């Protein structure tokens, strides 16, 4: 019986891909290890190899087809002597066929971020030409523009050059700026973070890419003790104008050591600035500001957001100031405050709540140091209720800090205690069902809003 060849999952975050090119045709004999096709994932073009031997029967998905879902049959493979019309054997059980968990888990909301755009943005003038860009492209453009503008800006990190970035953020930068300014390092975070900090003392403006922020823990001493404190310790004589950037937070199924949100950690440190954007325009405008800033800036990106598309203004010199929150959605019943990937849940929750007649105002903090308290307080004074949303752990969270500030500055305006929606107080589990439960969900945000609005 013919075997179905299925669209493979080729990255932790891949749900669908483009079947770029077939390297075999119907009737070709293949053996295990032969390349069948080129498939574009969310990150890269991958070669897809045969795992069984046989003859290619029918090609079911034509080259150039976009949006082919993982596990869709793309071709049939025949055993020797079989006809191409042989009925394909049912494909091996897809992931969805996993047996039910021992105890039923509450169904977590599917987290497909919606790229909603608020009507008015204070960041650019009405009528500005806009274009669609992914977060990944916006970040790359921001770095390239600043590197063109200032010869002392350089990028350093693991796989940023020849590999074009582990997450393809630095795509094309080596070609344009050469190996003097786009520097591949060994896997030595503590060492190169220290060297970059020293280079910043010496008059350069380094951008240090951590492959992910999990690995910045190797370098945390230099980030905090060397970069953040030198300006103060030197009585203002010298500091570290530099950016530490990279993906932060959970990706998908990469387990405890590779999934954590450092927002609250870095936000605690005087001397650092901390940025954690959500939309592509914010990634762009805030990265440009970060590179120009005379202080060490922690720029927390998100792997799941890298591939999301947003509207970005077409402007020559587009920057966004630190310390200015953005109101994504105006509302009257409750204020939802979030940042980074948390905005995905906040905005989704606001949509669901609107359908039930609850009007939520959604604020994206964008920068965590400095924080735009005024915008939050003004909103809470209007809605009298607040829910915060973040992916990090609950103890000592950004939400905790906002709650305290709201209590101090707007206590009399509150009609309900502030609720902090956070990730669960556990290391990130690998199992798919547990991972969903460990993360903050849209449904939890909806439930929290109902609680503070007494619905």
């Amino acid at each position, binding site marked *: 019986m013919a075997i179905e060849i299925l669209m*493979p999952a080729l990255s932790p975050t891949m749900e669908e891909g483009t079947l770029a090119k077939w390297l075999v045709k119907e009737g070709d004999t293949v053996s295990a290890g032969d390349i069948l096709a080129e498939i574009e994932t969310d990150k890269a073009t991958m070669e897809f190899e045969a795992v069984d031997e046989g003859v290619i029967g029918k090609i079911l998905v034509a080259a150039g087809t976009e949006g082919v879902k993982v596990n869709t049959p793309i071709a049939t493979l025949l055993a020797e002597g079989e006809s191409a019309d042989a009925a394909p054997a049912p494909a091996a059980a897809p992931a969805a066929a996993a047996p039910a968990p021992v105890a039923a888990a509450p169904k977590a909301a599917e987290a497909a971020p919606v790229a909603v755009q608020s009507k008015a943005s204070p960041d650019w003038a009405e009528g500005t030409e806009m274009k669609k860009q992914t977060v990944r492209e916006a970040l790359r453009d921001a770095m390239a523009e600043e590197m063109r503008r200032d010869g002392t800006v350089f990028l350093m990190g693991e796989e940023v050059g020849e590999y074009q970035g582990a997450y393809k953020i630095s795509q094309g930068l080596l070609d344009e700026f050469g190996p003097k300014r786009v520097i591949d390092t060994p896997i030595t975070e503590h060492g190169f973070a220290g060297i970059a900090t020293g280079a910043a003392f010496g008059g350069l403006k380094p951008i240090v890419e951590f492959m992910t922020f999990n690995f910045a823990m190797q370098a945390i001493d230099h980030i905090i003790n060397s970069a953040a404190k030198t300006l103060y310790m030197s009585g203002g004589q010298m500091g570290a104008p530099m950016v530490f950037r990279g993906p932060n937070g959970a990706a998908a199924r990469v387990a405890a050591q590779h999934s954590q949100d450092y927002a609250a950690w870095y936000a605690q440190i005087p001397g650092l600035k901390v940025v954690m954007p959500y939309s592509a325009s914010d990634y762009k405008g805030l990265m440009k500001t970060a590179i120009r800033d005379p202080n060490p800036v922690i720029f927390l990106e998100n792997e799941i957001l890298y591939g999301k598309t947003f509207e970005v203004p077409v402007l020559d010199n587009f920057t966004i100031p630190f310390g200015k929150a953005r109101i994504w959605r105006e509302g009257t019943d409750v204020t939802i405050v979030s940042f980074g990937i948390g905005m995905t849940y906040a905005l989704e929750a606001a949509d669901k709540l609107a359908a039930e007649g609850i009007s939520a105002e959604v604020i994206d903090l964008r920068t965590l140091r400095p924080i735009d308290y005024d915008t939050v307080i003004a909103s809470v004074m209007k809605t009298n209720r607040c829910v915060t949303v973040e992916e990090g752990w609950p103890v000592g969270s950004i939400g905790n800090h906002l709650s305290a500030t709201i209590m101090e500055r707007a206590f009399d305006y509150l009609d309900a205690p502030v609720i902090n929606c956070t990730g669960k107080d556990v290391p990130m589990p690998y199992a798919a069902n547990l991972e969903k439960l460990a993360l903050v969900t849209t449904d939890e945000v909806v439930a929290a809003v109902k609680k503070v609005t007494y619905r």
Partner: protein
Amino acid sequence: MATKKPQAQSNVSAEELKGYYRDMLLIRRFEEKAGQLYGMGLIGGFCHLYIGQEAVVVGLEAATKEGDKRITSYRDHGHMLACGMDPGGVMAELTGRIGGLSKGKGGSMHMFSKEKHFYGGHGIVGAQVPLGAGLAFADKYLGNDNVSFAYFGDGAANQGQVYETFNMAALWKLPVIFVIENNQYAMGTAQRRSTSTPDLWTRGAAFGIPGEAVDGMDVLAVKAASEKAVAHCRAGEGPYILEVKTYRYRGHSMSDPAKYRTREEVQKMREERDCIEQVRDLLLSGKHATEEDLKSIDKEIKEIVNKAADFAKESPEPSVEELWTDIYA
């Protein structure tokens, strides 16, 4: 101190040789199956296959005794199979199910077995090196003659904590073997692009740690080197470094397009240096085994791997309560 000596020829019986063939084949077939399950979405996240490197861990394990300990990076499936951990338990961990060795909570990169003295499964490049020396510290403290194996890559060999560990391990004469699995690449970085001097086995010289380079595609050469290193450690002479020259056939992880090397380079290695083919040739040419014998080994392995995959698919996901367990002892 660090001198490169000619590799001793290890005396092995036909049965032992067949055993190594079997163990290496189990790893290869297991990894191929894992790659398949990843493509089907049954395994998620990062999944680093060991295909090509099988002779390293099989050769090293050949010189161990009960009580010896091992620790490695995220590229850990081969190490677990080689020290006798259950293939079903490993595969079910890859699919994130309750029957997995970490109850589905660790995944591909994080598995452990107290029973088999396997201490993980570590995701942070280089972190297992001081941990491995710590295992040796405990054995020395407790006064037994166990040896610990700390496996790490050519990329990891540049991490600072490796050298802090070398110093202490030599200073305190810890019974630890530092096994550098030099597969020539750290993700997309060829070793020459990251490393100022290519001979990693010499890097203990500054600390007085002897070391040698070993052909990691030849399981017998690895075994001989392992025996020598183990004897050194068990005799209380302190740490030893083995730089095992090997090669990974697949991408760094399942999502690596591997554009940094040519297909020809990989193909050449596979065709000319493959560790399993070498032993197969040795078995057949020395008339230690017939084609039939090897076919029956292949069949046995296929059955083990299929059974492991079935178990990994059928084992249920962990219960919701598991989210909250094992955080504190």
